[in-house]
């Protein structure tokens, strides 16, 4: 399947809704759950989920529901989760990732990491200021979550902390973790400078599959 046909698989509002729902979950999703969450019939959900799996956008696993085993437990349920594969299409051809890899390596060999982190913090502040100006009545926590969502971080609440399901720089972060995770942290710190008036703080707390940055209120969960 070409990159274009993979992306074209998402050119259907129902299918895109299912894809977004599955990607936003912290667990594998059954057909029943996906159908209920997006308000469509189960057969329709199954059809579209399998199309997404055939395109490689979702990964399929089979598992029995918790607490059921042995004879009479029934067939294992078909479950879906986000695939690790990345797809990019640019028309005309552009390759910003290759440029980013070169620049990241230059930053490391020249010791420019602090400058990268300073600029990222400034960008975060700019994003925060823009969000606050656009929506002055929203409370700080919502403003932080909305802005992070708009930047592609897919924030979700996990008890007292806000975690980020997606690293927008995933491949680059895998190649240059101190530089890029630090860049993410600096961006979020800049955002908090402008939106959270000191009530929230960001720190590095890597969890499997997530971006390394978490946001927590400053009184608890101090950097350990």
């Amino acid at each position, binding site marked *: 399947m070409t990159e274009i046909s993979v992306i074209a698989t998402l050119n259907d509002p129902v299918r895109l809704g299912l894809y977004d729902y599955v990607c936003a979950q912290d667990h594998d999703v059954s057909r029943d759950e996906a159908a209920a969450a997006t308000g469509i019939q189960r057969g329709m959900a199954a059809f579209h989920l399998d199309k997404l799996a055939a395109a490689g956008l979702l990964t399929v696993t089979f598992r029995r529901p918790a607490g059921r085993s042995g004879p009479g437990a029934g067939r294992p349920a078909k479950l879906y989760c986000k695939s690790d594969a990345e797809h990019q299409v640019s028309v005309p051809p552009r390759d910003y990732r290759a440029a980013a890899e070169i620049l990241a390596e230059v930053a490391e060999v020249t010791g420019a990491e602090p400058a990268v982190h300073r600029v990222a913090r400034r960008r975060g502040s700019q994003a925060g200021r823009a969000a606050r100006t656009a929506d002055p009545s929203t409370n700080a926590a919502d403003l932080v979550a909305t802005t992070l969502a708009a930047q592609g971080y897919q924030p979700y609440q996990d008890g007292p902390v806000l975690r980020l399901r997606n690293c927008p720089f995933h491949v680059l972060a895998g190649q240059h973790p*101190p530089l890029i995770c630090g860049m993410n942290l600096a961006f979020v710190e800049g955002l908090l400078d402008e939106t959270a008036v000191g009530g929230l703080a960001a720190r590095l707390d890597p969890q499997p599959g997530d971006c390394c940055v978490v946001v927590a209120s400053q009184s608890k969960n101090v950097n350990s």
Partner: protein
Amino acid sequence: MTRLHIAQLNVGVLQAPLDSPQLADFVANLGQVNAIADAAPGFVWRLRDADGSDATSLRPRGPDLLVNMSVWESLEALRAFVYRNGPHLDMLRRRREFFRALDRGHQVLWWIPAGHIPDLDEAFSRLDLLRREGAGPAAFTFREPHPPREVTASALG
């Protein structure tokens, strides 16, 4: 096939003396980060000086160059500690406050037979090999890893 472990050496040129204010946070966090390493899944061994807590007093290549060397059961275990542990990743993020940028490789990985404990001569010969020839099966990096192969006696040292 002999079971293999992975060894790692990294070096850092100090920005300022270890007892200076600029290095205070590094020194203050070292004990905690080392304790996390010691308890981490897959940890086998790390280099310690006569004092016994860490390797900061060992300066085999000059007074400004700190060395850190350890052995792990797998590349995945090592990577998980280095890049997926909050306190350690935070020290890495801040490393330019403490250590100068090096134009040449500052970290090298290589496979060893389980049970073998590498010395600094072996480690620096791997770092020199990496710097001379780039990543290969005998000396590589996280960014360009090489799969474990049978390690022969001649490949040691």
